[in-house]
C-alpha cells in the first residue's frame, strides 16, 4: 500500500489470483498492528478496490459488529493482508483471539499470507523490532523458521542491532529494506521482488560467532520487458 506505487500490491494480487484460481481474489485485511486505525482501513479499500478483488477487513477491537466465525472467514480467503504497526501489540491481540492458530491453518490450506513491517515480522519465528530506540527480539507465529528484520535501510542502528542479535544466538534470517519483499513457497524463499529499483533484501547468518550478510538477488517489478532484457544481459 505504498502511495502512488502499486507494484507490490499488484504482485501479491497476482499471486493470490493464481493460488485461488480466481480473477477477483478474496482479500481480507487485518489492521490489528495499528490498533485498527480507521484511516488505515480506508487506505486498504482504496488500494484493494472491489473492481480488482473481493475485499473485507477484520477488526479485532470491534468484534461486536463483525463476522462471528473468524477462522472460517480467514480460511475462505485467497489472501490475508496484515498491516503494519506494533508487532508486540499485533502478536498479543492475535493470540488473544486464537488467530495465530487460524492463520497457520489458512497458510497450510494454501491461503496466501502477506504483510509489511509488523505484518511481515509476525510470520517468522523471531522478529527484530525497534522498541524504545533499541531493538529487541519478539516471537512471531513461526511459519517461517527464521528471523526477520524490516525497514532495514530506515535507521542506521538496525543493521548492527540485527547482526548483534544473530551473532548472539537469534536464528539467522532475512533483513528487508523498504520496497523489497520476500516471496516464500512453503518455508522456502522462492523470489525476492521490489517496488523500488534500489531496494534490497539480505540473508544474515551467524558463522563462527560472527554475523555474515549476503545480498539476495532481487527482481525490480517496475522494469519494462526491454529493461529486463538489458538487466538479464
Amino acid at each position, binding site marked *: 500500500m505504498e502511495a502512488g506505487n502499486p507494484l507490490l500490491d499488484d504482485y501479491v494480487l497476482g499471486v493470490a489470483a493464481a493460488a485461488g484460481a480466481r480473477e477477483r481474489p478474496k482479500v481480507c485485511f487485518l489492521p490489528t498492528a495499528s490498533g485498527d*486505525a480507521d484511516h488505515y482501513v480506508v487506505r486498504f479499500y482504496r488500494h484493494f478496490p472491489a473492481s480488482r478483488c473481493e475485499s473485507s477487513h477484520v477488526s479485532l477491537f470491534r*468484534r461486536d459488529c463483525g463476522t*462471528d466465525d473468524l477462522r472460517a472467514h480467514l480460511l475462505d480467503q485467497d489472501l490475508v493482508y496484515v498491516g503494519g504497526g506494533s508487532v*508486540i501489540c499485533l*502478536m*498479543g491481540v492475535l493470540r*488473544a*483471539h486464537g488467530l495465530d492458530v487460524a492463520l497457520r491453518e489458512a497458510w497450510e490450506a494454501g491461503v496466501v499470507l502477506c504483510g509489511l513491517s509488523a505484518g511481515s515480522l509476525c510470520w517468522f519465528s523471531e522478529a527484530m523490532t525497534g522498541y524504545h530506540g533499541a531493538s529487541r527480539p519478539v516471537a512471531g507465529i513461526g511459519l517461517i523458521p527464521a528471523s526477520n528484520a524490516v525497514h532495514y535501510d530506515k535507521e542506521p542502528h538496525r543493521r548492527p542491532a540485527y547482526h548483534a542479535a544473530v551473532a548472539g544466538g537469534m536464528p539467522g534470517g532475512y533483513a528487508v529494506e523498504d520496497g523489497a519483499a520476500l516471496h516464500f513457497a512453503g518455508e522456502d524463499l522462492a523470489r525476492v521482488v521490489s517496488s523500488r529499483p534500489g531496494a534490497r533484501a539480505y540473508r544474515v547468518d551467524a558463522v563462527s560467532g560472527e554475523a555474515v550478510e549476503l545480498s539476495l538477488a532481487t527482481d525490480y517489478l517496475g522494469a519494462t520487458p526491454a529493461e529486463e532484457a538489458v538487466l538479464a544481459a
Partner: protein
Amino acid sequence: MPDPGARRAGRTPTIFAMGGGGFTMEPGNPALDDYIRSLAPAREPKVCLLPTAGGDSEDQIRRFHAAFDDQLCVATHISLFRLGTRPVPLREHLLGQDVIYVGGGSMINLLALWRAHGFDAILREAWQAGIVLAGLSAGSMCWFEWGVTRSIGRPVPARGLGFLPGSNSVHYDGERERRPVYLEAVAHGDVPPGWGVDDGAGLLFRGTRLAEVVASRPRARAHRVHAVAGEAVEEVIEPRLLKARPHTDPRAPLAVQEMRDLRAARRGHRRG
C-alpha cells in the same frame, strides 16, 4: 533514583470503576471526571490515560485531552501501539502519576496488550502505591476477577486482573444483551458475585472494600448481584448523585494557566 511510588507510601489503594460515563460517553457532563480528579490528594494531579482497549484510538485520546487539558491537572496518555515512534519509560511514567484512567473498548485485547508490555505487574504496583486507578467499561471490568465482555462478539465472561474480588458487568442499563449473560454466569457460579453498574454510575473501592457509589445522572444505579439457591439476585445500591459543575466560567482556563505560570515562575526562582 528514588522509587517513584515511594512518595505515596501510606495511601490507600483506590479504584474507581464506572459502568460507563466520563469524557468518552458524557461529553457534556464532567461530574464523574471531576470526581476522579478529586480522588487524588495532589492539588494539580497527574492524570494518565491508557486508551489501550480502544486500540489507542486518536478520537479517545483527543477527547481526553479536550476534557482534561484545561483543568487543573497534568494530562498525558500512553499509546502502546506507537511506542516505536513515541517511546515512554513505562514503569517510571505510570508510577509517577496520581491517577491512571483506563478507557473503554475490548477487554480481551486490553488484557493481552497489557500482559505483552508487563503492565499487569506495573499497575498492581501503582495500585498498591495508592495511585488512583479509574476506568469505564473494559477499563472498569479489568480490575475485577471477572467481567462480561463483548470483545469476541456476543457477551461472555472473561477474566480480569483480579485486584478486586468478585465480578463486574458494565453498561448495565445501556445494553440489553449483557445483563442476562451476567445473571446466568453468577447464578451458575461461573463467575463470583459482584456488581452490575449502569452508565453514569461508578463504584469507589478503598482497598478491596466498596466505599461509595456515585452517579452523574439521577437514574443511574449500581446493583449488587449474587446467587441465592442457584438464582441470581440483584439488590439496587442507590448512589450519591454528584453535583453538576456550575456553568463553566469562560475565564477559568485562563485562571488555570495563570496558576501554572505562577508555579513555574516560583520553581524557576527556587532553582535560580
